[in-house]
Every structure is written in C-alpha cells, then in structure tokens.
C-alpha cells in the first residue's frame, strides 16, 4: 500500500484550539458550498458558513465538528480554520442545542419589530444551533450510536 498522504489541520476559535492534527481529508462548508480539501490542495482562502466540518484522520476514523462562521486558509500542506465558534460533535449536548434553537426561533416569532442587527444576530444563532445538532446527528450516524 502506498504511503498515505496527509495534511496538517488546525482549527482555532478565539477561545481555544479545538483540534490540531494530521488528517487525510477535510470537508468544510464555505460560503459557496461544501468543499473537501485533500493533501496538495492549491492555496485557497474562503469564508465559512455555519455548518458541519468532517475530517478523516490517518487511521481512517472520522471526526465531526460544528462551526459557525469564520475563515479557511489552505496553504501548502496546511489547513487552518479560524472559526468564530467550533465544537466537536461529542462535546455538544444535543438536547441543549435543540432547546437553544427552539428558544431563538420563538424569540424571532414573538418579536415582530426589532432592528436589523438583532434580527441578523438571532438568525446567526439559529444557524449555529442547527449546525450543532446536525453535527451531532452526523456523528451518531457514523459512530452508530443512538
């Protein structure tokens, strides 16, 4: 078997380093749609949306993370994600994520008149919580737990 090519992967948020590892592939939700980065990818810079990041590690296992906005920089054999927030799927409390989303949706329904900024904030929050619960679902599917 030929030696497996890997790429350095790092994801950081203002609070912490979420993950730093050698990986085989990374899929991220950019503003233009989901992309998958493999080793020797051309240098790229793009903005991220809320969504699910999936990486495949050297041993073939995948990891799922939720992310809400940020940037990705792919340089020579290195992927850096500067995320606004990011969490590993196993750290997310599904029930809390759902609850938070419901709460945000309710706020948006109840408050008919508020300024644009607040509306955008709440929408971003909904997108974030949705990404979190999607990440958990995907993770459960992969790990075959329920």
């Amino acid at each position: 078997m030929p030696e497996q090519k890997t790429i350095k992967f790092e994801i950081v948020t203002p609070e912490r380093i979420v993950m730093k590892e050698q990986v085989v592939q990374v899929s991220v939700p950019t503003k233009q749609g989901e992309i998958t980065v493999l080793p020797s990818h051309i240098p790229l810079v793009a903005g991220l949306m809320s969504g699910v990041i999936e990486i495949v590690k050297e041993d073939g296992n995948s990891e799922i993370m939720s992310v809400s906005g940020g940037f990705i920089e792919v340089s020579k054999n290195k992927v850096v994600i500067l995320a606004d927030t990011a969490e590993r799927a196993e750290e997310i409390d599904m029930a809390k994520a759902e609850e938070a989303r419901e709460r945000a949706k309710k706020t948006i329904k109840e408050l008919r008149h508020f300024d644009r900024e607040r509306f955008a904030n709440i929408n971003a929050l909904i997108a974030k919580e949705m990404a979190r619960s999607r990440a958990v679902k995907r993770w459960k599917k992969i790990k075959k737990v329920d």
Partner: protein
Amino acid sequence: MANTRDIQNRIKSISNTKKITKAMEMVAASKMRRAIEAVLKTRTYANLSWRIVLNLSQTGNGNGEQTLHPLLTKRDKVKKVGIILIASNRGLCGGFNSAIINKAHNSIKKHAKQEKPEFIIIGKKGAIVKKYYDYDIAAEFPKADIISEIKEVLPIAKIVLNDYLSGKYDKIMVAYTDYVNAAKQIPRVKQLLPIDITTQDEYLGIVGKDTRVGIDKEFIDKKKEKYSQNEKHIYEYTFEPNPREVLDEMIPRLIEVQLFQALLESNASEHSARMAAMHQATDAAKDMVDELTLFYNKSRQAAITNEIAEISAGANALAE
C-alpha cells in the same frame, strides 16, 4: 533621637499604608489571573490570523496591481501616522505607562520623518502624551478593567479603518505592552495598517513571543527569504468567491482581533505591573516599620535608662 510618641505615630501610619498596598496587591493579583486567562485563550487565534494575513499581504492580484486589497497596499508617501496607544486607567502600576509611552515616542523619533503623528488613546493615563511630548490626541476611549468581549474594540477598529481608508492616516500603529510573564512585560509598537510583511521587523510583532524584536523569528525569516528571492508572488491563493469579497470581510475582522489581543495583552501586563509595584511597596513599608520599631525600642530604652539614672542620682543625693 526622636520622641517616642512621634515614632509610634509614624509606625502606625506606615502600617496602615502597608495594609492598603497589600490589599491593592491582592486585588491586582486576582484581576491579573483573569486577564492572563483571557489573553492566553485568544493568543493562538490572534497569532494564526495575523500570520495568514501577513501571508496574503504580498500576493499580487494578477492585473498588475501590487496587492489584493486597499488595506494591504503600502502607500508611496506616508504623510500622517495614527498611533493607538493602550495605557492604563489608573496609576500605581510602576513603570507601565511611562514604558509604553517612551517606547512609542522613541519609535516615532527614530522612524518618522513625516508630520507629527496623532494618538488614539485607550485608557485615561495615555493622555499624558499631550502634556509630556505635545502630541495631538485624535480620540480617547475608556478602558474597562476586565476586558471580556471583542465588542469593546469594535468602535476603535471602525474609526481606524475608516480614517485609514479615507486617507486621513497613511499608517496605523498600535502601541501596547506584550505580556510575557508575571515578571516581564515588553512595550511594543506594531504596524496594524497597511498589513505589510516587508516592514521593519520590530513592527511586525506576533504577540506573546519573547524575542528582542518580538516576533516569531523563524517565520519572518522564512518569509523574507521567499519574497526577496522570488520577487514576491509566491503564494497565489485562490479566493472563493473572489479576493475582494473574502478580504473585505476577513481583514476588518482580523484587525479587530489584533486590536482585541493587544488590549488583552496590555491589560494582563498592567495588572501584573501593578501587582509587582504594590508588592514592592508592601515590602518597603515592612522594612520601614521594622526600622522604626528598632528606633522606637531604642528611644524607649533610652528614656527608661534616663529615668533610672535620675532616680538613683536622687537616691544617692538623699543618702549622703
């Protein structure tokens, strides 16, 4: 020798001072702990993002223009420089404020041949640049003692970006104090705009690294080599959807992060400096009390000896 009562009063007053400085030391220590926690949390993010943006800074856009974004373009003629100075709100923090102000002043003297720079001050004590060196102050922002949210730098970032883009300033520097450890803080001046890797080393500052020029030396050297050898254009990045859109969003965000980080570094440094200063004050007070106690005892004993001498002299006189 001074009067016993006088010495007693002094001892009392110094002990009170000592209590106060001790309390201030404790307060500073607890604030410092929080500030350090905050600064370490965001440091990786700040450093990484600064690297990315420095990486991008010299990428050409392919249509003959030198850089991809106005915020990355060096201006041919630097007329006016804006300096963001991060100082403290209150004094009693040792050389913290004078160190950063001197650093800013020296680097202006050394490099600036253009018009007098203007200062944007964060923290009350920064205002003395006007008094001491007669620099103009363009704006003054309050500073919270505990900084927790990036929101606090947003107005500053906005002013700076607008003034830069409108051409009021041709260069933006930020003067802050880099937190190395509780005993060591380095004042530093960093070039914020335009983002430019070819500027003097000392202005590139990646925060938190303890080297003389204050950078991740290896990283800079590597870059330098690359750019000088290959006439720039090493990394031709692909941007999605396009450079302008990505950078329009990315650079202001990263500037905010840099400012926020500088503020956090300064804050951690300030509290450390204050703690150290107060610790010294407490020690000095303790020494003084010890010394005065010695004097006090001596003078007390002298008084007693005197009395005894008088009494025995009196007794002797009677006996004769």
